[in-house]
């Protein structure tokens, strides 16, 4: 069975976010890039299951190859980079759908959302392009014979889904317990694994980002003495008008 795992190349979660060009472009100076945390869980879980041929894929420019190599060091079999600026989610989804078709995969796993644009849309769009079903925000994932059993959170609870291949799923919290950390041997082997570069497929850009806004500086926190909780109740009622 062949699985395609989408790997996001995203700023480290502790990064201080800054912009240039009049707040329209992300400033990547001094930013450490990592594999998106959900994608890391996705790959970890598929490696735990074992017996799968796993290809990691990224739509991006040359600098994302270090992130793909990290995924190879974790244990993926090979990698594909679609050589293009990832202009929007629809464009990225189209590329991955095409890679899927060419490679005859059985399964695509993405992260629940990218931690930079927070879209959470690529998985559903890939499914749309391939005309197959998708299960988003999976919190547990098993393969049992020729089916997958997937758990996901829904409003107020969770549901267990049985999925026949092929399908798309996106990994959320719980998909794997802890991300796998590559060992020395993995890192050495990753250098020799195949990283294929493919030209992009055409897809018109549907959306674009404009100005970014940093949150307004918050007014200073009003402090209340620990022995005067009544004052807090009064403030919440009279000033904040929230209770």
């Amino acid at each position, binding site marked *: 069975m062949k699985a395609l795992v989408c790997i996001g190349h995203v700023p480290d*979660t*502790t990064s201080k*976010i800054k*912009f240039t060009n009049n707040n329209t472009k992300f400033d990547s100076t001094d930013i450490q890039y990592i594999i998106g945390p959900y994608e890391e869980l996705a790959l970890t879980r598929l490696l735990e299951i074992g017996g799968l041929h796993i290809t990691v894929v990224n739509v991006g420019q040359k600098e994302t190859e270090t992130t793909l190599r990290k995924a190879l060091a974790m244990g993926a079999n090979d990698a594909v980079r679609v050589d293009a600026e990832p202009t*929007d989610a*629809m464009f990225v989804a189209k590329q991955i759908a095409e890679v899927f078709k060419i490679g005859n995969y059985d399964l695509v796993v993405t992260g629940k959302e990218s*931690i*930079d*644009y*927070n879209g*959470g*849309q690529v998985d*559903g*769009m890939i*499914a*749309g392009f391939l*005309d197959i*079903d*998708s*299960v*988003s*925000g999976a919190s547990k994932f098993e393969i049992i014979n020729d089916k997958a059993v*997937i758990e996901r*959170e*829904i*409003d*107020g*609870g*969770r*549901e*267990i*889904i*049985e*999925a*026949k291949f*092929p*399908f798309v799923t996106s990994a959320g919290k719980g998909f794997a317990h802890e991300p796998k950390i590559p060992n020395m041997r993995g890192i050495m082997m990753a250098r020799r694994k195949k990283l294929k570069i493919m030209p992009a497929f055409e897809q018109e*850009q*549907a*959306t*674009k*980002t*404009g*100005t*970014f*806004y*940093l*949150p307004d500086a*918050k*007014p200073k*926190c*009003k*402090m209340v003495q*620990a022995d005067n*909780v009544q004052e807090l*109740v009064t*403030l*919440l009622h009279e000033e*904040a008008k*929230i209770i």
Partner: protein
Amino acid sequence: MSILIYTENFEGKFKKSTFELASYGNEIAKRTGTEVVAITIGKVSIDALNELGKYGVQKVLVVKNSELNDFSVKAYSVAIEQAAKAVKAEVIIFGNNPSGRAIAPNISVKLNAGLAPGVVDLPSSIKPFTVRKKAYSGKVTVDFVISTDIKVLTLTQNSYKVIESETEISISNFDVNIPAGLYNAKPIKTVMNTGKLSVTDADVLVSGGRGLKGPENWKMVEEMAEILNAATCCSRPVSDLEWRPHHEHVGQTGKVVAPDLYIALGISGAVQHLAGVNGSKVIVAINTDADAPIFEAADYGIIGDVLDVVPKLNTALRQFKGK
């Protein structure tokens, strides 16, 4: 031309977030001179359907089809796509909840429509269609421009208010044509969380961190939640340590929430935690450490031991609420 909203029902009932959608759709309809059409799938009482008229919905399409008895992204998308075409929808709006997030991208591909996920405000411009959404894990917001003829949005819960706007409403059945057995992913079991209000539905959240020391101290957290009609939630280490169930975990890798009031008890306020809660309208923090970063995000704070302050605060709140 119309604005189509997907009004998900939960066992035949609508939630407050549905009325937020209707109000939001109504405002866009007013600006574009169109009407709001709601689509609902499955059995909903006539009273519940009529209630949508209170928030500006002019037409409801009720879809009943045995292929939609189980949730399947693919089958539901086909149904909504057919409705969108029938009413010539220019803007299609979903809630930014598990089902909305699942269906919207699919529809967006099928209708070649740009998608803005997690929108937090009305469009600042209709031409070009520009909406505000969060980015970089909630650390910033961004203007997001959709250039296609049809636009798909998912609206963040509690980011737009419910506005009454009584309208004449017409309710009709809408027949969809769905090939049998379209889906390859099928729910086999649903488990609902027991008891109370869910984290994403509550207007007030009482959240506990590692500063509470252990699960045995959660009684006071639950008590505060009960007094304030709130839901309880927690920081990631608390759910990792299994002091609390995983569905209570909020933050960048848990649930992203935007309640009216967020009360952080013994939570340090790490960036990944704040990313998930900084959309809250008012934040209260109680922490022993005056330098904890949570105080930079909070509106009101108490420097003190939660185990000592919370019981006193509960008494004061109970008195205030007359409970």
